C-alpha cells in the first residue's frame, strides 16, 4: 500500500510510521503545520507543532529512510478547529477540539488530499484497532485500555476508516512503544507525550479564551435563580466544575457546590449540589455512525462522554433527528458540546455531539 504517515514529532506517530515501513508499505512522512502561532522550541509537554516538533518528525523520517514533507493546513485548522472552539465557548458549551481536528483535518482534509495524490491510507500513531468485519471496516478499542484513543476517533465513518492505518492498536502497553522507539534509534523515544490543547502551548486555556471571548462579569445563581456569587467570564466554567467558584453565599447545607449549567444569553453560571449533576438523559442531532446506522430504533450500548471516562451501559434511542441516550446509572455532570461515543463492547458504533441534557434530580426535588 502507498501510505502517508502523519508524523507529529511525537513517539507514537514515529513508531507507527516505522511499523508501516517494516510491513513493506511504500511510506511517505508528512508533518502538518496547523498552528501559525507555533513557537520555535517546545516548552515541556504542552502544545505541539513547534519548529522543534517539525524537526523531530523530520529526523524520524530520515531515520526510517522515507521522504518527508511539511504541509500547511493552518488556515483550515484555524477555521474548522480554532474558530469553532471559540464559538462553542461563546455559546456556553464545552467543545473538544481534538475531535474536531480528527473530524475536519486529519481524517478529512488530509485524508482527502492523500487519496487524491495516490495514497491508499493515512497512518497515525493513534491507539485503536481496525477490524474488517462482515459489513465493512470496524473501529475497536486498543489493546491497552489506558491508552485507548478510540473515543477521539469516534467521528470517523467506515469510508474514512477504509483509508486509515493504525499500527499501534494491538500493542499491550505504551511503554513497549517507547522501548521500540529506543531500539529503532528514534531520538523521540523519551519525548514526553503532549497533552492539553495543541494550539494553546502554555496551557492557559482560560487566559487564551479571555483574550478572544472577552471577559464579561456576570452572576452565579443557584437553581432557584438566587444570586450566590459573581464571575468574570462564563467561558471559564464548565459543567461539573468545583474550583474557581468564588461564592459569597454559602450553601444552606454547607456542602460544596458545582457548576450545573452555563447560560451565555444571560451570562450566568448555575451552581448546585453534587447530586444535581446527576444526568439521566443526553441527546444530540449532530451525529455519525461508524458503519451503517443502527436498524433498530432502540438498542443497548455503552456510552463514553469524555476521553478518559468509564463507559456506562445505556439505552440509545433514535427519535427523529435526535439520538437520545439514557444511562443505566446517571452520569456525573455532562457538558453540552462534548461528544458521546457509543460502543458495542470494544466496537465503536458512532457518536453525537451532546446538545441537551436532562437532570436526574428535578429542581425542587
Amino acid at each position: 500500500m502507498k501510505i502517508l504517515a502523519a508524523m507529529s514529532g511525537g513517539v507514537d506517530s514515529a513508531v507507527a510510521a516505522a511499523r508501516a515501513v517494516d510491513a513493506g508499505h511504500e511510506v511517505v512522512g508528512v508533518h502538518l503545520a496547523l498552528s501559525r502561532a507555533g513557537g520555535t522550541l517546545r516548552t515541556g509537554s504542552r502544545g505541539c507543532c513547534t519548529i522543534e516538533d517539525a524537526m523531530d518528525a523530520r529526523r524520524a523520517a530520515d531515520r526510517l529512510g522515507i521522504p518527508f514533507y511539511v504541509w500547511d493546513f493552518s488556515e483550515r485548522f484555524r477555521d474548522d478547529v480554532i474558530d469553532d472552539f471559540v464559538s462553542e465557548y461563546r455559546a456556553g458549551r464545552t467543545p473538544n477540539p481534538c475531535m474536531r481536528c480528527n473530524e475536519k483535518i486529519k481524517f478529512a482534509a488530509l485524508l482527502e488530499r492523500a487519496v487524491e495524490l495516490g495514497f491508499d491510507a493515512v497512518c497515525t500513531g493513534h491507539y485503536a484497532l481496525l477490524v474488517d468485519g462482515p459489513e465493512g471496516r470496524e473501529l475497536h478499542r486498543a489493546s491497552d485500555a489506558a491508552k485507548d484513543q478510540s473515543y477521539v476517533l469516534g467521528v470517523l465513518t467506515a469510508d474514512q476508516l477504509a483509508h486509515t492505518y493504525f499500527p499501534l492498536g494491538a500493542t499491550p502497553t505504551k511503554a513497549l512503544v517507547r522501548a521500540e522507539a529506543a531500539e529503532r534509534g528514534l531520538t523521540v523515544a523519551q519525548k514526553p507525550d503532549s497533552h492539553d490543547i495543541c494550539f494553546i502551548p502554555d496551557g492557559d486555556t482560560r487566559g487564551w479564551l479571555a483574550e478572544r471571548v472577552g471577559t464579561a462579569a456576570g452572576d452565579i445563581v443557584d437553581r432557584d435563580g438566587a444570586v450566590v456569587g459573581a464571575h468574570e467570564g462564563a467561558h471559564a466554567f464548565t459543567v461539573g466544575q468545583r474550583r474557581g467558584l468564588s461564592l459569597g453565599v454559602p450553601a444552606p447545607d454547607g456542602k460544596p457546590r458545582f457548576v450545573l449549567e452555563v447560560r451565555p444569553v444571560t451570562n450566568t453560571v448555575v451552581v448546585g449540589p453534587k447530586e444535581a449533576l446527576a444526568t439521566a438523559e443526553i441527546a444530540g442531532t449532530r451525529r455519525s455512525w461508524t458503519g451503517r446506522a443502527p436498524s433498530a430504533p432502540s438498542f443497548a450500548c455503552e456510552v463514553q462522554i469524555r476521553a478518559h471516562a468509564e463507559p456506562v451501559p445505556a439505552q440509545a434511542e433514535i427519535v427523529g433527528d435526535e439520538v437520545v441516550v439514557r444511562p443505566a446509572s446517571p452520569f456525573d455532570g455532562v457538558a453540552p458540546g462534548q461528544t458521546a461515543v457509543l460502543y458495542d463492547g470494544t466496537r465503536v458504533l458512532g457518536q453525537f455531539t451532546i446538545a441537551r441534557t436532562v437532570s436526574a434530580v428535578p429542581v425542587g426535588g
Partner: protein
Amino acid sequence: MTAYFDHAATTPLRPEARAAWLEAVDVVGNASSVHGPGQRARRLLEQAREEVAATLDCDPVEVVFTSGGTESINLAVKGLWWARRAGSDGIVLPDGEHHATMDAVEWLRTAEGAGVTAVPLAETGAIPVHAFAAALPGAALATAMIANNEVGTVSDAPALAAAAAAEAVPLHIDAVGAAGTIDVRFATWRGAGRAAAGLVALSVSGHKIGAPVGTGAVVVSRHAALSPLLHGGGQQRGLRSGTQDVAGAAAFAAALSAAERGREAEAARLTGLRRRLVDGLRAAIPQAELLGDPDRRLPGNVHVHFPGAAGETLLFLLDQADVAVSTGSACQAGVAEPSHVVRALGRDERAARSVLRFTMGRTSTADEVDRLLAVLPGAYARAVAAGSR
C-alpha cells in the same frame, strides 16, 4: 537520477573549484602569520582576491571575503547604516528583495529605529528606476537586488547606480543571483569619484556559482564608510575580522573565473533550454502563465503561475517523480510559503501560493527538460483536482 531544477538554491561544485580548494587546503598556514607558512597561505589568498577583483571589475583591496550571500548582505546593509552620514535617515528598500536584505532592514527598523521607504516593483518584477530615484533624497542608504532570485527579472544596475550617485546616497547591490550569469562591473557602474556614495557595496555568493557553501564576498569601495559586523583580528581592512578561509577563497575565485569565461556561451545554452521548457509548457498547459520579464531575465530561470493548483502540491508530485523544483521559499519548518515576490508583482495571495520556480544551471540538459515536461501535465491535473485543501 533526479531531474534538478533548483540551481538557484544551490548548484554542483565546479571541478575548478574543487581542484583549487583541495590544492589550497593542504597549504597549512594562517594567512595573517608573519612567518613562511603564513606567507604561503597569504599568497594563495591574495591571488584569489586579485582574480575575484578582475572578474567583478574592482580593486583587490575592495574584495572582502565572507561566508556567503547572507553575511555579505548583512555586512553591507547594517555596515552602511551604522556608518551613515550625519543627518541622513531612512533605508530605500525595493519590494521583492531576498530575505537576507528584508530581514536585516526589518531588524534595523525595529531595533534601531531606521525608517524604511519601499519602492514597488513593476509588473515584470523590475525595480523602476524613476520611482527608485524619487525615494532616494536624504536616505542613509539604498539597496537593490539586480537579478530577482524568484522571478528572474534583471533590473537596470547602471541606471540605479547612477541615480544613487546623483543623489549622493550609498547604494548596495545584491548581485548574488547575477554574478557569473550577467556582466557585473562594479567600477563601471560606480563611475569615477571618491564619494562615499553611489554604488559602494556589492554582494556575491559562492555556492550559487559552483563554489562551496560557506564562501562569498562583498565588494566594498575603498571610498565607502562601512562598519563591520565582526570585530577581532582586524583582517580585510577591519571590515571582516576572523582567520581567512584561504581554501574557500581559492575555490570561490576559481568558480567565479570559470563562470565568467563561459558566461556568454552558457547564457545562450540556458536560453535554449529555457525556450524548450517554455514551448513545451505552453503546449501542454495553456493555462500556465509565465511571470517576470520575458526578455530581461536570468537565462536559466522560468517562473510559472499555475492557476488552481497549490505550488506545495505540485512540488510534492514532481518530487515523487524525482523532479526537483521550488515554490520560491520555505520557512524553517519546511512549509512552502506564499511568494512575497509574486505579491510584489501585484498578484494576490492565492496566486502567490500557486507558483513554481524552475532554475537551470551548468549541469542541466535537454533530457531533464523533457522529463519535467513529461510529468508536469499529469501533476498539474492532479493538483487542480486536489483543490486548494
